[in-house]
C-alpha cells in the first residue's frame, strides 16, 4: 500500500516536473498570430486586445506578434495551415472559414486545423429603416413571404450577414429577400441611411453605435431600428429588443472568435496559448473590450471547443450552401 502510494507519488512528481519543464520551454520566442484580414476589422481588434492584455498582465514571457495577411481570408488561413507546426504560428478566424468551405471556395476547412480556444462572440440584429412600416421580425418575414424577392436586403454575399439573412428567410416557408451586394456593417448602415436598401443584419456594437447616445437613450436622427437579437439573452443596452428565441423562432446566430494552430503543433504550445487566452479573458482590458464591443464573454478550449465547432458546422453548412446558390 505504502509502496503503491510512493510509486504514484513519484510518478506524479515526475510528470509534474516534466510538465513544468516542458511548459518552461514554450514559449522561448515571440508567438506569431496571423489575422487573415487587413488591420482594423473585428478579428484584428479581438486579436490585438488579447495581445495587449497578455503583454500588460505579463501572462506569457514572450509577446504575441499580430501579422495581418490581407486579400481574401483563405490566403492567411492557408498560410497557417501549411506553416511549420512548431507552436509559434496561430490563426484567428471566425465562421467565414466554415462558410467558405461549405460553399466550396477552398478545399480545406476547420478540421484541417487544431482548435486552440474560442474567445468571445458577437450576435447580430435584423434592422430595417424606421419609415419602413415594419415593426417586428414577424412583419418583416410576412412581407418577405407576401411579396417575395422585393425587400432589398443588403449583404456581403457569401459572408456573415448574408448567412444571417438566409437563416431569417428559412424561419418562414416561402419568405424571400432580394439579396444585394453592399458589403460589411458600416456599408450596410450607409445604404440603409440613404434608403438604398430595406433591411440587413448588423452586429450589436454597430446597432448601438449608430442608434444610441452615450447615455443609452435613442439618437434622434437615427434612421434605422433593430427588430430582434439573435443571441441567447436580451442585450443590456437594448432592453426593448426581444431575442428571436423569445419570439418563438429557433434561431441563434452568434459569431465566435476562434484561435487555431496548424495540425501537428505540440500539445504544450496549444495548452499554453489556450491557458494564456483564458487568463487574459479575465483581465480588465479584455472585459472592457467585450463590454465596448458588446461581445458575449464565452471561453472554450479543448473538447468543449471541438464539440462546439462541430455543432456550428452542422448548422451553418446548409445555410452556406444556400448562400452560394444565390
Amino acid at each position, binding site marked *: 500500500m505504502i509502496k503503491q502510494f510512493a510509486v504514484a507519488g513519484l510518478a506524479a512528481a515526475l510528470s509534474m516536473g516534466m510538465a513544468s519543464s516542458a511548459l518552461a520551454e514554450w514559449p522561448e520566442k515571440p508567438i506569431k498570430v*496571423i489575422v487573415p484580414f*487587413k*488591420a*482594423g*476589422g473585428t478579428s*484584428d*481588434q479581438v486579436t*490585438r*486586445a488579447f*495581445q*495587449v492584455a497578455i503583454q500588460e498582465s505579463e501572462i506569457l514571457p514572450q509577446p504575441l506578434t*499580430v*501579422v*495581418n*495577411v*490581407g*486579400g*481574401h481570408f*483563405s*490566403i492567411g488561413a*492557408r*498560410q497557417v495551415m501549411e506553416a511549420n507546426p512548431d507552436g509559434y504560428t496561430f490563426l484567428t478566424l471566425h465562421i467565414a472559414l466554415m462558410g467558405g468551405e461549405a*460553399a466550396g*471556395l*477552398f478545399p480545406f476547412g476547420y478540421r484541417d486545423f487544431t482548435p486552440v480556444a474560442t474567445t468571445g462572440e458577437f450576435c447580430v440584429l435584423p434592422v430595417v429603416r424606421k419609415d419602413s412600416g415594419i415593426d417586428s421580425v414577424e412583419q418583416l418575414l410576412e412581407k418577405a413571404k407576401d411579396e417575395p*424577392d422585393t425587400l432589398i436586403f443588403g449583404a456581403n*454575399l*457569401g*459572408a456573415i450577414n*448574408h448567412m444571417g439573412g438566409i437563416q431569417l428567410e428559412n424561419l418562414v416557408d416561402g419568405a424571400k429577400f*432580394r*439579396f*444585394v*451586394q*453592399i*458589403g460589411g456593417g*458600416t*456599408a450596410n*448602415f*450607409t*445604404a440603409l*441611411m*440613404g*434608403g*438604398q*436598401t430595406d433591411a440587413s443584419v448588423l452586429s450589436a*456594437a454597430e446597432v448601438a*453605435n*449608430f442608434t*444610441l*447616445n*452615450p447615455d443609452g437613450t435613442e*439618437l434622434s*436622427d*437615427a434612421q434605422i431600428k433593430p427588430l430582434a437579437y439573435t443571441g441567447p439573452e436580451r442585450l443590456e443596452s437594448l432592453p426593448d429588443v426581444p431575442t428571436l428565441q423569445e419570439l418563438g423562432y429557433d434561431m441563434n446566430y452568434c459569431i465566435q472568435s476562434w484561435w487555431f494552430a496548424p495540425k501537428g503543433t505540440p500539445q504544450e504550445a496549444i495548452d499554453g496559448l489556450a491557458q494564456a487566452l483564458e487568463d487574459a479573458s479575465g483581465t480588465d482590458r479584455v472585459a*472592457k473590450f467585450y463590454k*465596448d*464591443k458588446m461581445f458575449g464573454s464565452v471561453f472554450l478550449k479543448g473538447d468543449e471547443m471541438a464539440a462546439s465547432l462541430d455543432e456550428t458546422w452542422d448548422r451553418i453548412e446548409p445555410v452556406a450552401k444556400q*448562400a*452560394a446558390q444565390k
Partner: protein
Amino acid sequence: MIEGLFGALAHLMTPLPFLYVLIGTVSGIIVGAIPGLSGAMLIALTLPLTFYMQPVNAVILLIGMYVGSITGGLITATLLRMPGTPSNVVTTFDGHPMAMAGKPGRALGLGIAASFIGGLVSWVVLLFLAKPLSIWATRFGPFEYFTLILMAMVLIASVTQGSMVKGLVSGFLGMLVSMPGVDPSSGQPRLTWDWYVLNGGLKLLPVLIGIFAVSQVIGDIVTIGKRMERIETRVSGMLMSFKDWRDQAFNMLRSSLIGTWVGILPGIGASIGSIMAYTAARNMSRKPEEYGKGSEEGIVASEAANNATIGGALIPLIAMGIPGSVIDAILIGALMIHSITPGPTLFITNGDVVWAMIATALVANVVMFLAMMGSVRLVARIMYVPRTFLLPVILVFCIIGTFALDNTMFDVWVMLIFGVVGYAMERAGFPLGPFVIGFVLAPLMEEKLRSGLMMTAGSIEPIFTRPLSLTFLIIAILLLLTPFFRVWREGRARRRAATAAAAADEA
C-alpha cells in the same frame, strides 16, 4: 465649436503633441516618397506603439502620417517617374516631363503648393459641412457611383497620345488584370485557376508599383551605361508667383473640391480623386495639348485632389463612424483599442479626440508645407544621384514595402512581373496611363453596376431616370466626344485657312 478647435490647437502647440505631429508628418513624407512604402503600411506598423499612448496623442501621430504620406509621394513621382504611393501616379504624367525639361524645382513647388491648398480646402469643408455632406453622401446609390466612375473612365481616351488603339488596348489590359480573385459581387473565385493565392486578386499596390516604379528601374538599368545628359537645372521658380496663383486658382479650387467629394464617398480612394480632377482639368483646359508633356495644370490638379481626399475621408468618419478610406479604417481600429467607438456620437463621447483629429489635419498640413518647401533644394538633387546607387536602394524598398503590405511573398512576385510587363509595354509604345485607369476603376465600376442590377432585378433604367446619375452620364458622353470635336474643329479651321490662302493667292 471655436472652443473645441482652439483647445485642440493649443494642445498641439505643447511640446509633446507638437513633436508627434512633426514626427508623424515627416516620417509620412519620407515613407510616402519611397516607392513601395505607403502611408497605410506605416500607420498599420505604428498601431502597436499607439496602444500605449494617450488616445489624443495617438490620433495626432497617425493623422500626421496620413497627411505626410500622400504628399511625400509626389517627390519621387516627379523626379524619378516612380510614384511614391498609388495616389501619386497621375502626378508622374506631367511632373516628370517638366522635371526632365530642366524645371524639377518648379514641378515640385507646384505640387507642394497644390497639396497644401488641397488640404486646406478639404479641411474647411470638414470643419463646416461635415454633417450635412456625410448624410447627403449616403443617398449616393450604386447607379450614381457607376456613372461617376464612368466619367473618370473616359479619361482613357484623353490621356492616350499617339495610337488610340494602343491606348485602348492598354486600358483593357488594366481592366483584365483587375478581374481575378474572389468576385466581389458573388463571393465566388473567378479566373484564379484554382490557385489559392489569386483569391485575393492582383492588388493595387504591387501592380502599380511594378508597372511604374519597377519598370522605370529596369528602364534606367538598361540605359545605365549612357551618360546622363546633364541638363541645366533651375531650382528657382519653386515658389509660385502671384501670376501663377492667379492662373491656377480656379483649377486648384475645382480639383480640391473634386478630391474632397471623392474622399467623402466611402470606398473610393485618393488615386481616383486625382484621376477625376485630372480629367476635369484637362477637359476644361485651354491648353489640353500640354497635358502629359509637363502641364502645370496637370500637376496641380492631381496633387490638390489627392491631398483633399484626406479631409474628405475624415468627414464620414467623424460624422457617422464610416471610414472614407483604407487608412481611416485602420484609424478606427486604433481608436477601438482605446475604447473609443467612432460613430455619430463621437463628438459627444470623445470631443477631445475629434477636435484633435480636425486640428491635426490643419497643423500637419502646414508642417508638411514648410518641411517640403524647406527641403526642395536638397531633394531635387535626387535626380542627379548616380543611378548605380539609387536603383538598388529603390528596388529593395519596393520589395520590402510590397511584402509588408499583406505579408505575402506572392505580392512581391506580382510586383516584379508587372515591372517587366510595364517595361515591355513602354518599349512597344503602349501608354501606361490608360492601364492604371482601367485597373483602378474597373473593379469599382463593376461592383457598383452589379449591386445596382441586383437591386432592380436586372433593369438599367435607373441610370437614365435618377437625376444625378443621368447628369454624370451626359457629362461622360460629352467628355468622350470633346477630343473628336476638337480634332474636327481644328480640321475645319485648317481647311478654312487653306481656302483663305488659296483665295488670297488668286487675288
